[in-house]
């Protein structure tokens, strides 16, 4: 804080060069500080054992402040800029330096992310103030402190001006997620899930750390600005990037990919996300659906030019994304826990985003992130409300006809909005954002992108099916419910569901409206000439990821800063968009409107048939599949999540654990027992050998004394010979 004060005080006296700093909105750093202040205050509340909702109020106010500041930043935005806060890791030495300041880099991509992060953060904090009320005085402050930590870390991640700041946020959100998943720390499942989330994420972090090392050793800087400049400089020399030396440039995107796959729960590192649903639902909504898991998308968008340096990097991203989408959707179809369904759906939708990134549609990915944030948040929050009202009940077989119950209308219909968006129902926000990705899969020429496109369309059908499976089961049909296992002492027979009150309903409506409105940006006019895709495209265009904005005209050169991005984007875009793909002979952008609409309706129809019209048909289908030897594996494997967790445990965890046990044995037995104690025991063994000499007879001592003296004399007599021998053998050339 002192450094902030200093920078504020110091500016008026500064040189002309620092004018930029004066113009730069230094107050933007309070977007970061507000959650931190909230964290400190919540910590104080916990220490003072405050028994009111004060922590929630504090958090909501500070997060709202952050959101307002972000809005101000957005409306005052004039161009990308760096806001320096203080020196963090600033190592200089003779001939070099490693600089990673605590500084913010603001461009429109940042703002896009920050808008929904802080906005949804505020709303979900409001929601949680009611949702968590049974913990007031117990874990309430801890919960909101965790939310504050998350917001702080997420802001660092998104707003940092260098990769190490991003890493700070990256691990920070991982830690916040650990904190909040393990919120119910007395439930072993929650603790295990928290641990799993952190450790699996750490594998991704490992990739990020190595990528940072590589980037620094290749470009000499880890600041986004510096990297762009370096890239641009080499682009001007030659169209190739081989000047950066061999393998390093090609290895960077794969390491970054590893990080992104870890954080955004893609194959093969997605396993932590479904388990993370052990956390309180607002956490699932905020962290594990809307914001944190999209950090991987952000990372790749932020470092998009680096991915374009390698021919296979983006296609691999696309393939991993596409396969994850399909894979998670198949699991989601067969789950009964609605929160888990949502979790797998999140994994699946994240797969879409990666597909978008991979097929050179960073715009589509960003747009899908944006819309997904709203509709997935609302879905999770409605699940949370249901869970809250039915004492932890999440099994869709044990809930039915919610929309007819008293006080559950808002929940039911906001959930419908979320489901429509997720299923890609025509003219909802999800419909447009998903189409942007699907169309691009056909437009962009790449390794099997067309197959991927068809896979994604098929997955869209599955999505519609499992989404409406939830809604038809839970909200339609006859009224029926069973309470869950969190009765808090109530008698199961006298159980009455308690519908949500003002705070939750308000938030549900607000976010559901957001989900609907999120379709609007698609139709907004573009200020920049030539690009399609509305407001989000505009936002993405002003970032390193502009290479993925359709029809981006990148000839405009205004200032040095702009050329940096333009250059790279130019090269790649020209190359890849030279030939425009097609789908069934039509322009993909237009055709996709119809195709995905139809596929979505088919999925919805199946869901309607199996889960509302003839619910028994679903069970009988399942039984039929189980009865046949050839198809039995399908439902079993899908219900057991394809046994991926078991596979990991068998292939990675158990061998390592056995290795650990083995090492512990080696350590005790061989290294310590045999080597160390062996060497230590040698003198004793030798002593035993000589111990008959010490038989108590004076004369034998005399003999050894005389023998020793004789040896010494002999040694002295032959000393010169011994010395010359030693010198010749041990020390080669004595100077």
């Amino acid at each position, binding site marked *: 804080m002192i450094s902030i004060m200093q920078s504020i005080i110091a500016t008026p006296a500064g040189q002309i060069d620092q004018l930029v700093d004066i113009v730069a909105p230094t107050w933007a750093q309070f977007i970061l500080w507000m959650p931190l202040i909230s964290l400190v205050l919540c910590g104080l509340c916990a220490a003072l054992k405050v028994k009111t909702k004060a922590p929630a109020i504090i958090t909501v106010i500070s997060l709202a402040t952050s959101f307002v500041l972000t809005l101000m930043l957005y409306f005052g935005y004039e161009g990308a800029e760096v806001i320096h806060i203080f020196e963090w890791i600033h190592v200089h030495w003779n001939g070099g330096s490693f600089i990673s300041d605590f500084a913010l880099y603001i461009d429109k991509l940042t703002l896009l992310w920050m808008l929904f992060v802080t906005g949804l953060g505020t709303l979900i904090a409001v929601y949680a103030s009611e949702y968590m009320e049974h913990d007031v005085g117990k874990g309430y402050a801890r919960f909101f402190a965790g939310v504050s930590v998350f917001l702080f870390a997420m802001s660092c991640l998104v707003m940092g001006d260098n990769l190490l700041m991003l890493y700070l946020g990256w691990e920070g959100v991982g830690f916040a997620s650990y904190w909040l998943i393990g919120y119910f720390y007395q439930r072993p499942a929650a603790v295990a899930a928290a641990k799993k989330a952190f450790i699996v994420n750490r594998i991704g972090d490992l990739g990020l750390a190595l990528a940072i090392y590589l980037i620094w050793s290749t470009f000499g800087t880890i600041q986004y600005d510096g990297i762009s400049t370096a890239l641009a400089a080499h682009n001007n020399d030659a169209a190739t990037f081989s000047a950066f030396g061999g393998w390093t440039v090609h290895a960077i995107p794969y390491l970054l990919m590893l990080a992104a796959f870890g954080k955004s729960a893609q194959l093969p590192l997605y396993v932590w996300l479904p388990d993370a649903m052990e956390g309180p639902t607002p956490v699932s909504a905020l962290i594990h659906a809307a914001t944190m898991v999209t950090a991987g998308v952000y990372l790749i968008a932020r470092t998009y030019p680096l991915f374009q340096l390698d021919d296979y990097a983006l296609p691999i991203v696309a393939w991993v994304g596409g396969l994850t989408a399909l894979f998670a959707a198949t699991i989601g179809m067969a789950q009964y826990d609605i929160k888990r369904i949502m979790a797998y759906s999140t994994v699946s939708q994240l797969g879409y985003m990666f597909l978008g990134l991979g097929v050179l549609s960073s715009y589509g990915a960003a747009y899908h992130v944006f819309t997904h944030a709203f509709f997935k948040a609302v879905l999770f929050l409605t699940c949370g409300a249901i869970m809250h009202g039915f004492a932890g009940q999440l099994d869709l077989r044990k809930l039915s006809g919610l929309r007819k119950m008293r006080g559950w209308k808002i929940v039911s219909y906001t959930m419908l909005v979320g489901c429509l968006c997720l299923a890609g129902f025509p003219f909802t926000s999800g419909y447009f954002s998903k189409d942007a990705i699907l169309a691009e899969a056909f437009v962009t020429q790449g390794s099997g992108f067309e197959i991927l496109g068809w896979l994604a369309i098929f997955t869209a059908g599955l999505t519609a099916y499992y989404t409406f499976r939830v809604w038809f089961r839970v909200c339609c049909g006859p009224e029926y419910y069973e309470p869950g296992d969190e009765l808090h002492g109530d008698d199961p027979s006298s159980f009455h569901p308690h519908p949500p009150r003002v705070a939750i309903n308000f938030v549900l409506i607000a976010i559901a409206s957001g989900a609907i409105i999120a379709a609007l940006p698609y139709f907004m006019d573009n200020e920049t000439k030539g690009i399609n895709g509305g407001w989000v495209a505009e936002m993405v265009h002003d970032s390193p990821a502009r290479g993925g904005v359709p029809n981006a005209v990148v000839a405009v050169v205004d200032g040095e800063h702009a050329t940096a991005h333009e250059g790279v984007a130019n090269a790649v875009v020209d190359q890849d968009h030279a030939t425009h793909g097609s789908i069934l002979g039509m322009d993909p952008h237009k055709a996709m409107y119809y195709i995905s609409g139809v596929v979505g309706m088919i999925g919805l129809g199946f869901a309607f048939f199996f889960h509302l019209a003839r619910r028994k048909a679903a069970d009988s289908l399942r039984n039929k599949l189980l009865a046949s030897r050839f198809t039995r594996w399908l439902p079993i494997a899908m219900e057991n999540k394809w046994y991926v967790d078991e596979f990991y445990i068998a292939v990675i965890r158990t061998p390592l654990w056995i290795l650990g046990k083995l090492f512990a044995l080696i350590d005790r037995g061989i290294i310590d027992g045999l080597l160390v104690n062996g060497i230590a025991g040698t003198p004793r063994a030798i002593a035993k050998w000589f111990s008959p000499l*010490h038989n*108590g*007879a*004076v*004369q034998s001592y*005399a003999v050894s004394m*005389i023998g020793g003296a004789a040896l010494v004399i002999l040694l002295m007599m032959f000393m010169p010979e011994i010395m010359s021998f030693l010198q010749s053998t041990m020390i080669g050339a004595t100077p």
Partner: protein
Amino acid sequence: MMLASFGAATLASYLVVSGILLVIGVVGFLVRRNLIVMFLCTELMFQGAAIAFVAAGRYYLDYSGQVMVIFILTVAAAEAALALALVVFMHRQRDTLDPDAYGELAE
């Protein structure tokens, strides 16, 4: 007083004599079983050493050799006093001069 010539060969003869004395002392020390005679044998070794000291001192015209012999005398006297007192003391207990009889002192 001028001293007669005393060459290296002369010194060597004296040293060999002293060496033989020392060896006889050692052998005696090793073979005898009587505590007192063992002490006497150490005195014999002292004699050898004394001759070597004086001869070497004579060779170098240095009196330190003889001074050393004085210290040897001192030590011998002290040793005789103490050791004999011990022997008397032990003999009173065990009525023997065989060092093997006192084996448990070593433990």
